[in-house]
């Protein structure tokens, strides 16, 4: 302002000076001694025309004066608007960078390129965010906290985490009154369980899978539950004798223990068992008075009792002379009774040859089986021993072979259900014919069914009949009936998924049953009029049959 005032003041002064110089020239005051005044005075000194020109030219040098009077750096717009000054002041252009040069690029392509460049620069410049005002950064709460920490740092102590073991005592009891520290142990308590320390071992012991003591090895007898044994009269002579699929139990194979385990155990058991049996044998009449069947005094019944009571009594026949010399119990050698060996084969022979009583048969099978296996079991100790025993074993072998054939034939004839009722199985011829037919239809065109295969099929058939009979009985019982009716079988077939909406039992019947049986089936409908579907299907069957006929 002052300069402005000066300039304004200068002009009238200069005018006054010119006026005064026109009047009195040499008067140059120090007040007018600045450059303009000197120039004007000198110019005014030349000619009035020059003075006038200077006056006219005054605005021109006043441009920098006006710029100085604007009290600030020159605005960019003004500089851009005046390329002349811009060109004249290279520093300004350098300071402004590309923005100053942009005004020079006038073609639209150039402008687009410039814009592109600007955008790229805006993106790529790493420090484009740098020039923010530092105020926000300076006044974050973090800074406050840091300042606070700087203030507090000399006074505070670093927190030492207490070891987990002592936490309860220090936290709870040492500082009971301090409210600030009451939160401490509460917050640290999860720490106690988390670190894998002492508690982990306990957890591991808890999480251990239960170790079964004896079940790792494949011993079947550990897993099996000992079920009540059947009487010898029902006991199977062979493995698959009784029909049931599920009724083959370990406890039924009681007498077969010779095969399973005792061979490998050694002579001690055999000898002791044999000794026990022998003792019981030799004291025969007195000992067997104690048995359940007391009054049966015949030799056969004694044998039966022996077979039933224990393995030992069944085994004792011919081991005896062979084994006892090698054992500690030498006094038992006294008891070796040749007559017993003599009587035993006789007995079995008798029993095997006379098919009289069932009990006798069973007993003989049992006895002969056991005796036939014993020689092989006790082969090794027998080697150096008496030849008579070997002869006896050969004899016994013959006997067992005879008895085996006998047994097989008997097994096929008589089978007893779990209700104690004997039942036959289907005749093999029928089964074979059916099986051959179905094997042929299932692709095996020239299927020859061997004897073994037929046996297996018959076995499966027996199991099948037992299974469906159980089911049918259950259905009838559920319906409160004492009789198995057609509806039970229909339910069974439905549950077997043999019949559904598309295949009715009667279409199946027509497919699988011979004509005569279909005629029997035709008598079914009067009792089955309750359900419409079955009536319809029956009608269909009738129509079909009529068409066929």
């Amino acid at each position, binding site marked *: 302002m002052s300069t402005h005032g000066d300039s304004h003041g200068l002009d009238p002064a200069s005018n006054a000076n010119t006026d005064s110089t026109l009047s009195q020239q040499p008067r140059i005051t120090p007040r007018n001694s600045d450059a303009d005044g000197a120039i004007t005075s000198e110019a005014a000194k030349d000619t009035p025309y020059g003075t006038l020109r200077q006056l006219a030219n005054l605005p021109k040098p006043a441009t920098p004066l006006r710029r100085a009077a604007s009290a600030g750096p020159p605005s960019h717009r003004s500089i851009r608007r005046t390329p002349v000054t811009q060109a004249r002041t290279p520093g300004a252009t350098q300071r402004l960078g590309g923005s100053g040069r942009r005004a020079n690029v006038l073609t639209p392509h150039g402008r687009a390129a410039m814009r592109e460049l600007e955008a790229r620069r805006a993106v790529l410049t790493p420090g484009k965010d740098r020039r923010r005002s530092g105020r926000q950064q300076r006044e974050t709460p973090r800074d406050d906290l840091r300042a606070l920490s700087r203030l507090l740092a000399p006074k505070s102590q670093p927190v030492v985490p207490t070891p987990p073991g002592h936490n309860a005592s220090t936290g709870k009891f040492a500082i009971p009154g301090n409210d600030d520290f009451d939160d401490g142990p509460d917050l640290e308590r999860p720490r106690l369980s988390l670190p894998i320390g002492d508690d982990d071992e306990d957890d591991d012991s808890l999480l251990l899978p239960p170790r079964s003591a004896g079940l790792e090895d494949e011993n079947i007898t550990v897993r099996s539950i000992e079920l009540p044994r059947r009487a010898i009269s029902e006991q199977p002579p062979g493995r698959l004798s009784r029909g049931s699929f599920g009724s083959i139990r370990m406890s039924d194979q009681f007498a077969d223990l010779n095969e399973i385990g005792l061979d490998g155990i050694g002579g001690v058991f055999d000898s002791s068992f044999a000794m026990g049996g022998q003792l019981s044998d030799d004291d025969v009449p007195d000992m067997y008075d104690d048995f359940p069947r007391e009054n049966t005094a015949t030799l056969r019944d004694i044998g039966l009792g022996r077979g039933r009571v224990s393995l030992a009594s069944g085994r004792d026949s011919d081991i005896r002379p062979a084994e006892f010399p090698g054992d500690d119990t030498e006094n038992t050698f006294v008891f070796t009774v040749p007559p017993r060996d003599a009587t035993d084969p006789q007995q079995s022979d008798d029993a095997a040859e006379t098919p009289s009583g069932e009990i006798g048969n069973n007993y003989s099978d049992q006895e002969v089986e056991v005796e036939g296996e014993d020689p092989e079991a006790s082969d090794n100790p027998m080697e150096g021993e008496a030849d008579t025993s070997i002869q006896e074993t050969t004899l016994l072998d013959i006997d067992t072979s005879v008895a085996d054939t006998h047994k097989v034939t008997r097994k096929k004839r008589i089978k007893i259900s779990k209700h104690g009722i004997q039942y036959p199985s289907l005749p093999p011829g029928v089964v074979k014919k059916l099986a051959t037919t179905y094997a042929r239809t299932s692709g095996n065109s020239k*299927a020859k069914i061997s004897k073994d295969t037929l046996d297996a099929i018959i076995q499966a058939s027996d199991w099948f009949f037992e299974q469906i009979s159980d089911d049918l009985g259950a259905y009838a019982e559920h319906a409160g009936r004492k009789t198995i009716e057609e509806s039970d079988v229909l339910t069974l077939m439905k549950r077997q998924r043999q019949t559904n909406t598309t295949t009715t039992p009667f279409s199946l019947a027509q497919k699988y049953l011979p004509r005569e049986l279909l005629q029997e089936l035709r008598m079914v409908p009067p009792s089955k009029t309750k359900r419409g579907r079955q009536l319809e299907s029956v009608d269909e069957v009738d129509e079909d049959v009529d068409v066929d006929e």
Partner: protein
Amino acid sequence: MAGAQKLYPRATVKKIVKAHSKRNVSKNVDVLIFLDYALFLQTLMKEASINAKQAGERGISAKSVKKVTEVSLSKFKG
């Protein structure tokens, strides 16, 4: 009419079922039971022949029948 052309022993079937279930069997049930048995036997033979073919046997051996017996029986569980 792929099934059996011959009559089966009806009394035998009746006896079998009666012995196993300890119940009376009404008059014509055995026909249906025999029908079921025929279905079972067909399934059994089919499975057995498949098993025999997989094992590379000619014909059907007892072993393959025994192998498929359990499966077939479980299929016919009511």
